[in-house]
């Protein structure tokens, strides 16, 4: 629209002058701001106070801030007709009859006593005059903090207790968490803090842990604890600290907690005999003691019975007493023993196979570990026939059956010839001239005596000849028992030690176990703590791997250990 704006101003000589301006705009903005089309100055005029625009054939005024006066009436908006007067902050804007070519005409009579300097002093020249405020910001942030960080989470706690579901958008007590949960715990309980924190201002109680961990055993059985002067064992959370980073951390593996009790075991442990421990290595830790089995023979009808008695001995004095005849030296000498499969020197792992726990070894069995070299053949003429292992009666009966068949078989040519091996002599054949059964029994007896007392069984086993008339009762073979775990109180991950620095393969095994020098099976090839200290220390060092008590010792006894207690 085209508007004619006529301003009434006072000329330099005090005579009022009209000043006309043509304005082409969709609407006329009115206010004290510099960008308003009609600028009216004064304290009661807002920056953007009002607009005047076309409405039908006439005009309308719309106040943007508060109200304006139209013909002395305060209104928010009003239609304007010719002759109407709009009053804003003392200024008057009169709608007059527009001359030809104009859509509207306005006559502006400004308030006289307003001079420019008054408005300039009203400029906002300090941040204090803006919306910024220190108190406002402080209280807003505090309110936000108390509502979101305290009140709403407290409400969530109450709702949890009343088993009411919490909307996903609602801030809950997880805002109080001091760090991430262990992933397994996170998976199990999610954001329910009250799964463990049952009471405000109370530490997590063991009951919360035991609700899920029902099979865990305490460090000391109550009857043993009663023998000591110690208090109750600490809360689970004494060692198991949650909300750490990394989240997978869950066990306080520091030695301090262990040593707090074990360092003074002489006084604190009462009648329990436990060596004092003040750390790892040197004089801080007791010497390693080997748990061995000793055979105890008891005379019984027609022979012996064996009991295996556990004994604990020092590594220096301890001797294996397994009843096995075996020389590691011999088996590891490539000039004397080679593998049957590829004619190469035996490796440790050919006989000693790690169990899946990575710690213990499969028990050595004759059938799986020895038989590939040590066949139980007894007749070079029948290399496919072998004696049953571990069953002396069966072996005797089998030999008798074998020779009976051999001497009575009409299709076997001359059964009267038998071969006999003598030490230091080439095989020579002897002739039997008696009845086939007698010849067979005699040959069988000869072979049986040879197997039990000169070659065969006696090569590895202790065999006692009781000179009993009854052949089946005559030879007693001592049973063999090898210790499965020399150090049951500790665990040693063999698998982690298959490579030690630059040592690998047999070299790694032999660095601890002096097998090449062991001629007797009674040799205890167990390394002591100084060997561990070559690579490990309790304090971090450049050339040492740090170990703590819990690296070797379990705090919670395993179910198998628990049974023994």
């Amino acid at each position, binding site marked *: 629209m085209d508007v004619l704006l006529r301003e009434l101003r006072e*000329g*330099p000589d005090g005579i009022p002058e009209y*000043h*006309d*301006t043509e*304005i*082409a705009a969709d609407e006329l903005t009115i206010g004290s*701001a*510099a*960008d308003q*089309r009609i*600028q009216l100055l004064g304290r009661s005029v807002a920056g953007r106070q009002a607009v005047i625009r076309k409405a039908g054939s006439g005009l309308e005024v719309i106040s943007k801030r508060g109200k304006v006066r139209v013909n002395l009436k305060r209104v928010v908006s009003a239609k304007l007709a010719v002759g109407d007067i709009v009053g804003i902050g003392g200024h008057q804007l009169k709608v007059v009859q527009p001359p030809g070519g104009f859509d509207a005409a306005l006559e502006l009579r400004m308030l006289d006593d307003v001079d*420019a*300097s008054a*408005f*300039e002093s009203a*400029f*906002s*020249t*300090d*941040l204090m*005059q*803006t919306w*910024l405020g*220190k*108190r*406002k*910001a*402080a209280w807003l*942030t*505090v309110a936000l*903090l*108390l509502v979101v*960080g*305290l009140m709403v989470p407290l409400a969530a706690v109450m709702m949890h207790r009343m088993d009411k579901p919490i909307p996903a958008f609602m801030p809950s*007590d*997880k*805002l*109080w*968490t*001091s*760090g*991430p949960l262990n992933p397994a715990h996170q998976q199990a309980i999610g954001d329910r803090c009250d799964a463990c*924190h049952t009471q*405000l*201002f*109370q*530490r*997590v109680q063991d009951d919360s842990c035991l609700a899920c961990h029902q099979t865990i055993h305490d460090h000391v059985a109550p009857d043993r604890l009663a023998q000591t002067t110690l208090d109750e064992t600490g809360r689970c959370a004494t060692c198991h*600290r949650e*909300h*750490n*980073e990394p989240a997978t*951390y869950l066990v*306080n*593996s*520091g030695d*301090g*907690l262990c040593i707090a009790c074990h360092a003074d075991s002489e006084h604190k442990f009462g009648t329990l005999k436990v060596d004092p421990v003040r750390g790892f290595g040197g004089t801080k830790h007791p010497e390693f003691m080997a748990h061995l089995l000793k055979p105890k023979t008891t005379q019984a009808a027609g022979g012996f019975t064996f009991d295996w008695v556990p004994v604990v001995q020092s590594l220096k004095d301890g001797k294996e007493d397994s009843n096995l005849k075996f020389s590691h030296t011999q088996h590891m000498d490539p000039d004397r023993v080679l593998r049957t499969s590829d004619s190469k020197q035996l490796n440790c792992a050919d006989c000693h196979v790690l169990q899946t726990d990575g710690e213990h070894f499969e028990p050595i069995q004759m059938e799986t570990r020895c038989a590939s070299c040590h066949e139980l053949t007894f007749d070079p003429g029948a290399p496919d026939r072998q004696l049953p292992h571990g069953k002396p009666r069966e072996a005797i009966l089998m030999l008798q059956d074998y020779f009976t068949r051999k001497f009575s078989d009409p299709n076997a040519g001359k059964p009267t010839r038998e071969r006999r091996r003598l030490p230091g002599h080439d095989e020579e054949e002897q002739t039997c001239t008696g009845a086939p059964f007698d010849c067979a029994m005699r040959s069988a007896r000869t072979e049986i005596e040879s197997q039990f007392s000169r070659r065969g069984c006696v090569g590895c086993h202790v065999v006692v000849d009781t000179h009993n008339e009854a052949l089946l009762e005559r030879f007693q073979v001592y049973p063999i028992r090898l210790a499965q775990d020399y150090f049951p109180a500790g665990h040693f991950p063999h698998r982690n030690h298959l490579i030690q620095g630059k040592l690998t393969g047999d070299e790694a095994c032999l660095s601890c176990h002096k097998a090449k020098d062991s001629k007797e099976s009674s040799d205890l090839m167990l390394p002591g703590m100084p060997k561990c200290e070559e690579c490990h220390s309790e304090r971090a060092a450049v050339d040492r791997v740090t170990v*703590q008590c819990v690296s070797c010792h379990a705090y919670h006894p395993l179910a198998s250990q628990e049974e023994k207690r």
Partner: protein
Amino acid sequence: MIHRSLLRYGGARYLWWSLLVIAASCALYATQDTTAQPPNGGTWQGYVLGTIGALLIVWLALLGIRKRSYKSTAGTVQGWTSAHVYLGGALLIVATLHCALQFGWNVHTFAYVLMCIVIFSGLFGLYSYMNHPQLISKNREGGARAELFAELFELDRQARGVAQKCAAEVTSAVDSSIERTSIGGGVAAQLFGRDYSFFLRSAGGASTLAGNVDQQAVIDFVAARLPRAEKGAEAANLQQLIVLLCRRQAVVRRIRRDIRLHGWLKIWLYFHVPMTVALLFALVLHIVTTFFYW
């Protein structure tokens, strides 16, 4: 200058205090047995660091009271402020060691963030107090802001007077440029010196609202009329007007720069003070919620 001597107060004795606090905190942090528990606020060292941090926060906030206690004899305000600056910097290290850089969406990290806002706004304030007073006095050439405004109003009066004697378009342009000069304004306008000035450009009876940033457009408008001036008196008036408007331009520039420098000198307080209050509450909440779920 007082602002410079803030850091050198007492031979920078609080710098050494601060370094001592930092060194002691680092040593304490290093004693944490990482095999027992990863470093965090829950180890005994963590609790000690947290206690030191909390005491520092409370003491640092007490500066707001001490500087208003004119009768107090507990050290000079200048000494307090010097210690406030140095120990405030040390607090950042102490609190970071306390939390061992473990952050999350929780009230504890919120307290840490508030503390960082307070410390970094404080450091910005320190920077402003070191630099801006010099720039301000250089800009004002020793005078006060009121003097600049007085000079502006005097120029306004003279320019209006001369403009009255000129053609109607010039009168309208000069009057409107004076009335529509924008100085200061909102936060952004004050801090960045935004200029929303306008003037009415009239030609042949019609007028349009034209931008007048830095008062340059109105000077150009008046100058453009100079070659077309018919009478000698008119040319003289226009020349006089141009001189007045140029002087006015210089004064407005100076006032705007003064407002801008003052804004930057004070803006940090609008973060530092309210966030300190919020931090004190957040600190209490941090401690209370820690023991809610012990």
